[in-house]
């Protein structure tokens, strides 16, 4: 990118209407992480504005979608940073590692066996085509406790590494692993109960 961005936008820079098409996608992305409609709409709005203003910075090397997702990720991480300053994961009164460990323990018998043995889900990818499946998935994701969900989505939606998550939230790697494990166990349990066990 050589010249001044207001007078010499690259020909492929997407216009506002082109960017608007991605609003639904961006909103789902933000909502899964933030679990708050208002906050999600805010970060998506900021993202689209930044994209419109910075259209000249779109290099065309990646797709518009990838470019927008990159901007959104930064906005979400900023939001999570503010949020974890205001509501730290490590409240002095509770010990999240302990309560997470207890939640995991509850899914296993005293001898370490599964209480509910994970079933064979057959060919689960077929569910991707089913609208009803995504309703169940959304419902199950919302059942996760807020703090567990925050760590899980930082890992699976923002695709941050465990180290980055630890740094952002001020938790240990072990704590992070326990929370991720709990999140996966809870999602697994719910999907099996509400979807795969039904068919």
């Amino acid at each position: 990118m050589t010249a001044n961005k207001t007078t010499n936008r690259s020909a492929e820079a997407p216009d506002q209407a082109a960017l608007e098409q991605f609003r639904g996608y961006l909103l789902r992305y933000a909502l899964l992480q933030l679990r708050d409609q208002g906050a999600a709409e805010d970060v998506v709005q900021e993202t689209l504005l930044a994209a419109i203003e910075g259209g000249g910075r779109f290099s065309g090397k990646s797709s518009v979608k990838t470019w927008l997702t990159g901007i959104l990720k930064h906005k979400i991480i900023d939001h999570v940073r503010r949020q974890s300053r205001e509501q730290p994961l490590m409240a002095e009164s509770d010990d999240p590692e302990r309560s997470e460990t207890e939640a995991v323990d509850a899914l296993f018998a005293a001898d370490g066996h599964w209480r509910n043995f994970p079933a064979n889900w057959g060919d689960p990818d077929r569910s991707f085509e089913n609208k009803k499946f995504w309703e169940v998935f959304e419902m199950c994701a919302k059942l996760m406790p807020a703090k567990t969900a925050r760590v899980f989505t930082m890992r699976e939606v923002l695709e941050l590494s465990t180290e980055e998550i630890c740094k952002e939230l001020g938790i240990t790697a072990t704590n992070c692993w326990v929370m991720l494990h709990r999140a996966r166990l809870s999602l697994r349990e719910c999907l099996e109960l509400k979807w795969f066990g039904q068919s």
Partner: protein
Amino acid sequence: MSFIPSCKEVSELLSQAQERPLTFPEKFALHVHLPLCKGCRNFREQLGFIRAAVRRYIDQDDTPR
């Protein structure tokens, strides 16, 4: 970890395998447990599915590619 790993320990390792490379003794524990335990084998499949499902969820096809 005790000599014979339990489902609980194995499920933790399977989950952590998505975050970091497992050590040799940890891999060995999986190697001992998984052929004998259908529940944990199913769980391993489900972990892969869950990761893929999150990506697919945000990427549903109402947007241009």
